[in-house]
């Protein structure tokens, strides 16, 4: 049972409306041994170092510190909190808390050894009379074994947050067995010391018989319970995944479908919505790190920039743009200019050539040359026929490319439509 106290108000109370009774837990994160000092420090609102020093000081006072520590370790349950950690209830399984709890279990063995040494010193210093002395060692063995086994309870609790790996499970089993062996050894030693070694054989047989009976009775039940537990854990993970997907589908797809139903008469708008949703969904499905990425940040690579520009034009003009990118490179100043020209070309293609079908955008990085082409299947157009005062093509595409040391060409495609070709040398490799 956790030692419950209501005093010592916390310096960082989690929620002001409900001052839940503070309970003492051993700290699971940032601990050195059992997390006792950390938990105590968090509970009392003292620096950890102080508490640790007190324990250390008491340790030299005939090993009392070690014994106290051991008692705390065994009695106080493992929890979340302590100094520095967010004060959180034990039963709150926050998703980030799971990661914070993921701590290697190394050092626990050393902690146990240290405890044992402390206990030995303590026992060695306290003289209890020669008759009692003989029982000290068996008692110690039994104690150590119990500690080993009882520590399992902690780990079982932690396993609720952490998925226990196979290797670790084996470790737990080994630890449990070691604990049982120690306790058994201690009990045997007791008997030997008491001089009842003669009956050891009979006693052992009887004990084994009883144990076997218990195992037979409780074994299947225990096995089923473990199976149920792991199955439940699996279900929970599945449910979590499903919830995540459902949340995404709800935020994006269902929302879009509603919009589409509302705009069912407007063909262009429906197409635009569908395309935008398709793009977003593809990004979510096929881009590993693209999940939930906001569109706000500036693109840093050529491929990203091309796709972004095409998406924007598609959204604005309701014409599908199909993008194919070969290779990729980081954007520099010249390429940014090229991207602006390409975007302008896409806008033109969508505006004047969108009726003929999808606009095809192709970008290729080959060595230092970056080539972008935008082709539409529209009626086609003649550059010479465009009046000189129309700034669009001349200025934003051809002029911009030339100013930055690139070339731009506009030409009719044999099968109909127009193609804009933009070529630029990258500044650096």
């Amino acid at each position: 049972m956790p030692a419950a106290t209501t005093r010592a108000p916390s310096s960082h109370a989690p929620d002001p409306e409900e001052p839940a009774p503070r309970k003492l837990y051993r700290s699971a994160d940032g601990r050195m041994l059992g997390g006792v000092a950390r938990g105590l420090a968090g509970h009392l609102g003292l620096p950890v170092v102080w508490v640790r020093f007190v324990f250390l000081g008491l340790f030299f006072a005939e090993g009392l510190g070690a014994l106290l520590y051991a008692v705390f370790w065994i009695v106080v349950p493992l929890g979340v909190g302590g100094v520095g950690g967010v004060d959180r209830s034990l039963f709150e399984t926050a998703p980030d808390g799971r990661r914070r709890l993921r701590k290697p279990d190394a050092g626990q063995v050393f902690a146990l050894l240290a405890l044992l040494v402390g206990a030995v010193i303590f026992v060695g210093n306290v003289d209890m009379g020669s008759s009692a002395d003989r029982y000290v060692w068996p008692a110690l063995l039994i104690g150590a074994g119990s500690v080993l086994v009882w520590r399992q309870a902690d780990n079982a609790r932690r396993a609720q947050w952490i998925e226990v790996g196979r290797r670790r499970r084996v470790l737990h089993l080994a630890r449990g067995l070691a604990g049982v062996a120690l306790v058994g050894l201690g009990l045997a030693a007791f008997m030997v010391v008491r001089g009842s070694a003669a009956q050891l054989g009979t006693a052992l047989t009887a004990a084994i018989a009883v144990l076997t009976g218990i195992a037979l009775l409780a074994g299947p039940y225990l096995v089923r319970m473990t199976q149920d537990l792991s199955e439940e854990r699996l279900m929970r993970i599945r449910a979590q995944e499903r919830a995540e997907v459902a949340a995404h589908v709800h935020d994006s797809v269902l929302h879009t479908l509603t919009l589409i139903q509302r705009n069912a008469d407007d063909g262009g708008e429906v197409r635009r919505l569908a395309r935008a949703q398709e793009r977003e969904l593809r990004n979510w499905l096929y881009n590993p790190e693209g999940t939930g990425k906001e569109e706000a940040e500036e693109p840093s690579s050529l491929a990203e920039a091309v796709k972004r520009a095409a998406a924007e034009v598609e959204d604005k003009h309701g014409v599908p743009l199909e993008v194919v990118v070969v290779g990729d490179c980081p954007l520099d100043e010249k390429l940014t200019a090229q991207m602006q020209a390409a975007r302008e070309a896409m806008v033109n293609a969508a505006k004047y050539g969108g009726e003929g079908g999808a606009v095809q955008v192709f970008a290729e990085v080959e060595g230092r040359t970056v080539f972008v082409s935008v082709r539409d299947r529209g009626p086609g157009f003649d550059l010479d026929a465009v009046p000189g005062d129309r700034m669009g093509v001349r200025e934003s595409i051809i002029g911009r490319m030339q100013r930055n040391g690139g070339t731009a060409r506009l030409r009719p495609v044999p099968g109909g439509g127009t193609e804009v070709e933009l070529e630029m040398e990258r500044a650096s490799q």
Partner: protein
Amino acid sequence: MTENTEAAGGPERRVRVVLVDDHRMFRTGVQAEIGRTEETGVEVVGEAADVDQAVTVITATRPEVVLLDVHLPGGGGVEVLRRCAPMMGAVENPVRFLALSVSDAAEDVIGVIRGGARGYVTKTITGTDLVDSVFRVQDGDAVFSPRLAGFVLDAFASTDAPPVDEDLDRLTQREREVLRLIARGYAYKEIAKQLFISVKTVESHVSAVLRKLQLSNRHELTRWATARRLV
């Protein structure tokens, strides 16, 4: 068998097609778009929704072309290709596969091509283009969508390591040009005009690329596909 090619060409040509896709709605859509046999010459002789069904239907009907979805319950399009391999290689009435998918993942696409599909088109393709592609595949030619051409260019582009087999591991300059034009959205006819070659030559270039894609053991190709493992 049902083919009545009187050398007249055009709508007189007939092709028997099996549709394999796990979405019934999509099958219905394709059927409506290309299945009017009198107009398009395409006769849909069977449909399947998963791998087992697909193999059964294909074996029973022996179509000339199978429109195959990449993602299928029971192992995906690749599994269908694997189990139909004997029919693909048959000298008489070979069954040919055209992959049809919404997938953007390079691995999926390269996977079905290496599995033996004669081409890959996205589901956004128009009905006329799809009919065109089906006939092309029936003739044993390859069909590359702009996206597939982009993938292939990308896969063969990083040629820092020396090729193991010079013949298979590298694209010729001409093949590269053809692929680039496909990626830019040109139809075969337009490519022919652009490069001053015949459509037949374009087709042979594309088929050569397909062959390289299927046979090349270049480790980069697989590495590239895994590096692009997107799902």
